[in-house]
């Protein structure tokens, strides 16, 4: 499923976030994971659980999760952005929360907290891609 959404500018990666963004070029979602087992997003220069600065890496994620909370935005904060659109907190099965966008339903208010979602990708002009989420149950397409 594709989307008509054209994302705005995304600032360049830095040394901490480069691995996350590089993986998006191949449409691979990753979650920063510490040797201690802690997972966190966005990527940071240290583990907020154990404090380690040298034990962090981006681990592959299947990109499955549920809607933690969402809002339908009716007033665009920048020109050229079509409304309404859905902004959501998605909780990945790995436990971390991502801010993202939900697509794939005709009625944006048909979403519910707890709905199952899977990752999809919106390509950026510089070769990176932004993850967003679609319903994982194909029978819901008509909603």
């Amino acid at each position, binding site marked *: 499923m594709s989307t008509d959404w054209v994302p705005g500018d995304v*600032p360049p990666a830095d040394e901490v*976030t480069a691995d996350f963004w590089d993986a998006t070029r191949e449409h691979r979602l990753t979650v920063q994971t510490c040797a201690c087992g802690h997972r966190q997003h966005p990527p940071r220069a240290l583990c907020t659980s154990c404090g380690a600065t040298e034990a962090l890496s981006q681990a592959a994620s299947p990109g499955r999760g549920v809607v933690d909370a*969402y809002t339908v935005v*009716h007033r665009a904060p920048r020109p050229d952005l079509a409304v309404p659109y859905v*902004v959501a907190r998605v909780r990945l099965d790995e436990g971390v929360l991502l*801010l993202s966008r939900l697509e794939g339903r005709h009625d944006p*208010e048909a979403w519910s907290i707890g709905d199952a979602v899977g990752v999809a990708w919106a390509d950026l002009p510089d070769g990176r891609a932004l993850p967003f989420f679609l319903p994982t149950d194909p029978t819901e397409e008509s909603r």
Partner: protein
Amino acid sequence: MSGVAIVGAAECDLGVTDRSILGLQTQAVTRALADAGLTLADVDGIATTGVSRFSASQLADYLGVVPRWTDSTFAGGSAYEMFVARAAQAIEAGQCEVVVISFASNQRSAKSRRLGGVHEPWVPEAQFEEPYDPLYPLSYYAMAARAYLHRYGGTREQLAEVAIAAREWALLNPKAFRYGKGSLSVEDVVGSPMISSPLAAADCCLVTDGGGAVVLTSAERARDLRQKPVHVLGYGERTTNTSFTAVDDLTVPGAAASGADAFARAGITPADVDVLEVYDSFTITAALSVEALGFCGEGEVLDLIADGAIRPGGSLPLNTNGGGLSYCHPGQYGVLLLVEAVRQLRGECGDRQVDGAEIAVAHGTGGILSTHATVVLGADR
């Protein structure tokens, strides 16, 4: 109880002023000092934000003051409650004697308010959140409202009571932006244009010019001044997040811990509070804060407010000036929570006066439920 009191309080011009930020700041500071019976020559501490990158320095320069103590902590609308705590500590420690806490904005006249896009490009939110175009701060509060209503089975109609009650108070306050504009119905609120669901236009605070100032000094010096002192009984704060995803449970804001610290320091419980001034950037902000501060149990705030408890004459007088929703919201409303709490404790509020108010709480919130600061104030007895 601290040995520090608020001895002066004032607003600058409110609404649509066509004045500059420093012009409005000057009004706020000089009016609060006049209220206290003090002058700029007495001031040796300044706390403010929203003036420039060097906010307190800038204001001190402008006023011709060389302060012994300043604070420009940027924590959105909660900064002014934090300033009370820091000022009380500085005065008790003997670093300074007379502190002015002030804020002013001309955001309505200057049309400077933006719907989103507030982050410096080098912070994580710029890479990981802003590309999704959440309205800032509105979409965060909208998701918190969604999460709360979902968890407890509440409705937008129930939440609307926060805006309806604020309007009832504003109708008693001639300085309120919505004074004389009539009562709100549930339908007025839920039927207003949707902005970021489930929050509609009438769930959102005003965008106005305005601001104010309060003056603090030692309780000892306060005895010789013009006004009855209002004592700083306790304070607490929590800083929880900048991002949309750092807080696991959107329904429990940092107000819970901030309030618990403040009440413990003051030696009181929520049952002792006569007047409650709580940041209402949105209806949900006030609702979550009232609950988190302990005025009801978990999941109970919509039931608490359903019977008119927070309206004039109710058992829990809330936002007695009309709040950010119907009185004034200059972008950082926190200083005006303090101004109203002081006036209630001095008994100066006319038609909206809460009879016999002895303890007031001012609770500020900044950012996206990011910063939370509670101040407990007591009337002079």
